[in-house]
C-alpha cells in the first residue's frame, strides 16, 4: 500500500473522495439556503425537512406511481418546488414585513410538522431506495472502489450548483433578485413583479433541497430525520461561507465535505465537531464568513 511519511495515501485519497461526495450534498443544501436567505433574508429551517421530503417523494413516486429515479429527478423537484411556492404564498408572505426571526421560527415549525408527519406515517427506521440500474456497479480506482452512483452525485451536484451560481451572479435576473431583496417596494415601482419573483425563487431554493433529497435516496436510507441531522451542519457551512453568498455556499459546502473527510482519516473522534470548530475559527478571524460581505 502506498504510504507517505507514515500516512496511508490510499486511505487518505479514499476519505477525500468520500468527503467530496458528502460535500456535494452540503453544497446543494447550503446553496438552497443561501438563495432563500439572500432573497428573503430568512433562514429556511424547513430546508432539511424538504430534503427529507424529496427523498420520500422519490420513494413514494416509485412505490405508488411507478415513477423511476430519472423521472423523479425532474418531477420531485418540481413538485417540492410547488410546495415551496405554496409555503411562501400562504405562510411566509403574510409575515414578510415582520422581523425575520419570525420566519425562522415559522419554518422551524414547518420542519417539525413535516418531520412529525413522516415519522407518524413511516416510522423512523428508514426505507430503502434502489440505485438506478444504469448507475449500478463501480470502478476500481488505484486507491478505492468508486461506486458509479457516488461519482454521479459529484457530477450532478456540480452541474446544478454552477448553473445556479451563474444564473444568480451573472444574469440580469440575478440582479433583479438581489435588488428585489433589498427594496422590494422600489423594484415594484420600477416595474418588476417582485412578489412573483420572490415566490418563484423560494420555490427554486426549496426545489434544490428536493433535488438533493432524490439524489440522496439511493445511498442514504430514506428516513424522517435525515434532514434534521444534516441541517445544522449546513447552517454552520452557510455561516462559514458567508450568509447569502451563493458562490461561498457552494465552495464551502464542497470544502467542508473534504475537511470532514480529512478529519475522519486523521482524528475520527472530531469528525462531528470539525465543521463547528472551523466555524468558530472563521468567526474569530472573519466575522462575516469567508465569502461574506460585512453587514
Amino acid at each position, binding site marked *: 500500500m502506498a504510504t507517505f511519511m507514515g500516512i496511508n495515501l490510499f486511505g487518505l485519497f479514499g476519505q477525500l473522495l468520500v468527503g467530496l461526495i458528502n460535500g456535494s450534498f452540503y453544497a446543494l443544501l447550503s446553496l438552497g439556503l443561501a438563495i432563500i436567505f439572500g432573497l428573503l433574508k430568512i433562514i429556511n429551517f424547513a430546508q432539511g425537512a424538504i430534503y427529507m421530503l424529496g427523498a420520500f417523494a422519490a420513494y413514494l413516486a416509485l412505490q405508488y406511481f411507478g415513477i423511476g429515479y430519472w423521472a423523479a429527478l425532474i418531477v420531485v423537484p418540481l413538485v417540492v418546488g410547488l410546495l415551496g411556492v405554496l409555503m411562501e404564498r400562504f405562510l411566509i408572505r403574510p409575515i414578510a414585513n415582520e422581523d425575520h426571526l419570525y420566519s425562522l421560527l415559522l419554518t422551524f415549525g414547518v420542519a417539525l410538522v413535516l418531520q412529525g408527519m413522516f415519522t407518524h406515517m413511516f416510522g423512523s427506521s428508514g426505507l430503502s431506495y434502489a440505485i438506478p440500474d444504469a448507475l449500478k456497479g463501480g470502478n476500481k480506482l488505484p486507491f478505492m472502489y468508486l461506486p458509479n452512483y457516488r461519482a454521479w452525485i459529484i457530477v450532478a451536484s456540480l452541474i446544478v450548483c454552477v448553473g445556479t451560481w451563474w444564473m444568480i451572479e451573472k444574469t440580469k435576473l440575478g*440582479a433583479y433578485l*438581489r*435588488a428585489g431583496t*433589498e427594496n422590494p417596494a*422600489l423594484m415594484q*415601482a*420600477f*416595474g418588476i413583479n417582485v412578489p412573483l419573483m420572490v415566490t418563484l425563487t423560494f420555490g427554486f431554493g426549496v426545489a434544490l433541497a428536493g433535488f438533493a433529497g432524490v439524489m440522496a435516496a439511493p445511498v442514504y436510507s430514506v428516513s424522517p430525520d435525515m434532514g434534521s441531522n444534516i441541517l445544522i451542519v449546513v447552517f454552520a457551512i452557510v455561516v462559514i461561507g458567508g450568509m447569502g453568498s451563493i458562490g461561498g455556499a457552494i465552495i464551502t459546502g464542497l470544502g467542508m465535505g473534504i475537511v470532514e473527510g480529512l478529519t475522519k482519516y486523521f482524528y475520527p473522534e472530531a469528525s462531528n465537531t470539525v465543521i463547528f470548530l472551523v466555524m468558530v475559527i472563521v468567526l474569530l478571524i472573519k466575522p462575516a464568513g469567508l465569502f461574506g460581505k460585512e453587514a
Partner: protein
Amino acid sequence: MSTTRPEKIRINDLHAFYGESHILHGIDMSVGQGELVTLLGRNGAGRSTTLKAIMSMVGRRTGSIVINGTETINMPAHKIAHLGMGFCPEERGIFSSLNVEENLMLPPAVRSDGVSVEEIYEMFPNLAERRYSQGTRLSGGEQQMLALARILRTGANILLLDEITEGLAPVIVQKLAEVLMQLKERGLTILLVEQNFRFAAPIADRHYVMEHGHIVEEVHAHELEAKTELLNTYLGV
C-alpha cells in the same frame, strides 16, 4: 385648471393610508404633458406620500389616479411603471448588493428613448469614476445623482422626483436645474417634491401647496410674486 396640454396625471379624491393612519385626505390634482409641477409643504405634509400613492407604494389608497388615460387605482404596483413612470424616492433607494453601473442599468426600460449611459456619465462624471464601486458606498450626494440618473435611463416620460437636490453641492443643484429644463423641453412630464424653493421656483410651471394631507393652494408661476406672502405663511420661508 388652466392647462390646455394633454393630461398625463389626473388625480381625484385620493386617500392614502399606512396601516391605520390616514395620511392623504382627498387629493385632487393634475399634471399636463411637458409640465413641471411641484408639491410644496412642510415636513410631514404628505408630499412624499402623494408620490408613493401614485406608484402604489402606500398601504392602501382609494380615489382615482388616471395616468396617460388609464385608471390605475386598482392596478398592481409593478404594472404602473410600464405606463412610462419613473420614480426617484427621497431615501434614494440605491441597492447595496449592486455596483454603481448595475444600479444604473437595473430598472427595466419602460420606453425606448431613454437617456443613454454615455450622456448620463457626461452629466454626472462622479458616477463614471465610481462605476464599479458598491452602490451604497457612494457619498450621499453621489447616491442622489445615481437615483436620478437611473430613471432617466429607462425612458420614463412621467417623472416623480422626491427631494432630488437634497444633500447636493450648490454647483450640482444648478446643473440639475438645467437638466430638468432640458427634460421639460423634450416633453417630459415632471412632478417634483422640493424643500428647496429657490431651486424649484424658476423652473416650475405650477405649484401645489400641501398641508396635513390636503392640497391647500395652487399657485401658477406667474402668480408667485403676488402670492409670496401666502406661501410664506404656508411654508415658513
